């Protein structure tokens, strides 16, 4: 099994067809998974549904350690294992399954820009709230993260993960000294305003056919709307945009409930 890391390995995987036994590894949904991990996992699932690709989901307590980069989700397809949303989307694209074929060059640039906006704002915001916000971290995140381990690991490992995440947030400029919940709320509101303007009255962000942006936005917004946290200001910010809420409901109905019923 080779780890798809650089672009040269990505080209190698192009010749292999999509494996019908492709599996996505995620942490335990009911007791372990964290909000920002759930966003990434949902985004990937939505993307694969939109491409019409069959896959299985396996919930594993050690999903984080199965992933080569220790980030979730990870996809096992044929001889390759890939982790994180963007590399998985690139991997699927290289195999010939693309959702952006109908877009003009201008729109493709906008697609990259809006994807960057969501990854740059919503992702770190969810990580900040999960780990840097005292109440959420103590009451929810650490308990969920440590729930699959026996004592004393259930106490030590969440603390270690917390210091790792705080260091990561500080490195990307989202540390406790640089950002506060108010600033984060403002940035998320700005992001939602831009997304609302882009979506308008359309079914998807770029017309009637979904693209990877729709999958990524769905993953983040659905998680924010459906997760109850001690501080729910992100959900309140998203709910102020009814077209975004309607978008999430549509994608859920079209790609998740339909697939579940078949």
């Amino acid at each position, binding site marked *: 099994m080779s780890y798809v890391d*650089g*672009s040269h390995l990505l080209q190698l995987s192009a010749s292999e067809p999509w494996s019908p036994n492709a599996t996505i590894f995620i942490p335990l949904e009911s007791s372990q998974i964290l909000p920002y991990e759930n966003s990434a996992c949902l985004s990937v699932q939505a993307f694969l549904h939109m491409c019409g690709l069959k896959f299985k989901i396996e919930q594993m307590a050690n999903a984080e350690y199965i992933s080569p980069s220790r980030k979730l989700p990870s996809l096992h397809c044929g001889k390759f294992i890939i982790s994180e949303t963007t590399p998985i989307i690139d991997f699927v694209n290289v195999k010939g399954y693309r959702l952006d074929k109908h877009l003009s*060059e*201008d729109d493709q*640039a*906008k697609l*990259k*820009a*809006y994807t*960057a*906006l969501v*990854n*740059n*704002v919503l992702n770190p915001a969810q990580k900040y709230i999960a780990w840097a916000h005292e109440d959420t971290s103590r009451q929810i995140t650490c308990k969920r993260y440590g729930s699959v381990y026996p004592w004393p690991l259930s106490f030590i490992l969440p603390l270690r993960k917390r210091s*790792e995440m705080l*260091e*990561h*947030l*500080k*490195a*990307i*400029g989202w540390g406790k000294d640089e950002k506060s919940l108010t600033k984060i709320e403002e940035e998320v509101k*700005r*992001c939602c*305003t*831009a*997304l609302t*303007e*882009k979506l308008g009255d359309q079914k998807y962000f770029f017309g009637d056919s979904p693209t990877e942006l729709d999958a990524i936005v769905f993953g983040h917004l659905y998680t924010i709307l459906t997760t109850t946290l001690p501080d729910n200001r992100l959900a309140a910010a998203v709910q102020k945009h009814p077209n975004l809420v309607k978008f999430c409901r549509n994608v859920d109905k079209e790609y998740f409930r339909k697939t579940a019923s078949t």
Partner: protein
Amino acid sequence: MSSKVKRYEVKVWPNRWEMLSIDPECMALLTYTCITHIPIRIKECLPWQSRSGVTPEVETDEVMYSGFDQLVRFFCGEGFNADGHLTAEQEADKIAFLSYFEQQLKPAITYTLWADNQNYNEVTRPAYAKMCGFPRNFWHPGQMREKAIQFVMQGKSRNLHGKDYQTVMLDFKRPIYMKAKSCMNVVEQKLTKNEFFFGDKPSSLDALIYGYLAVLVNAPLKSFELKHHLNSCENLKKFCERMNKLTAESKNIINGSISSTTPSSSSVKKSEACMKKETMITLGIGVSAMVLYGILFGIFTSRKSLLAQKLGTVSKK
């Protein structure tokens, strides 16, 4: 005349390499002020001399604003809006593209300046060390480098998985440079139809793009993979020349205002006085440490000491 117009004092990193400021974010903000003709007074200072510890910074009577985003919003509120001609859709696109350039260009520029060994040792470190002054020139550029590398590696630098540092950095270089090149291609494609990103008038997005690219254009880099790519994009080169001309015209006005108003020249003297004070303190500590060592180990009083004999301070015990 200029004393009647309210001038905003903008604290930025000093200028170098024919740019208004050596730091990309400060450069982006100064470009924005040139585009919107905001009356400003540039105060060259180092981050630890500013109130918030971050440059660029503007201090009004009540509040302090720092960082490109916050300052652009502040100036918009004061009536200096470069994005007034944008439609609602373009405004949303602008927010998306601002994130896009921060995600794709900023890591590559940071890598080129700070993580690339040749550029850091021969270009960046000497330039920043000269600006920091004695004694900070010994450790501050190294600290900035560590912070830049943390940013590029997104906080993973301690986890080397047994590989050596050079290999790990090269592993990061390839995807970062690829993203920056594809980002520059996007701008190149946008500029085929327009002079600026959103048409014929420059916006805050153009200021940010130029802020990042100005370093590539002007700095005397030794390893220039990104610079080569920039030179191969005709529209991007013309865009940089256009923005350079715009900022050069405004630079003359700004430089003119610096020489004529005494408060700014006294503020330049203040920052020099600060550096002299630091130098004096360091020398003072060094000399006192040597004298204390001499006293404690009997170098000034011992019979065996040649120095004591010469000075005539041998103790009579």
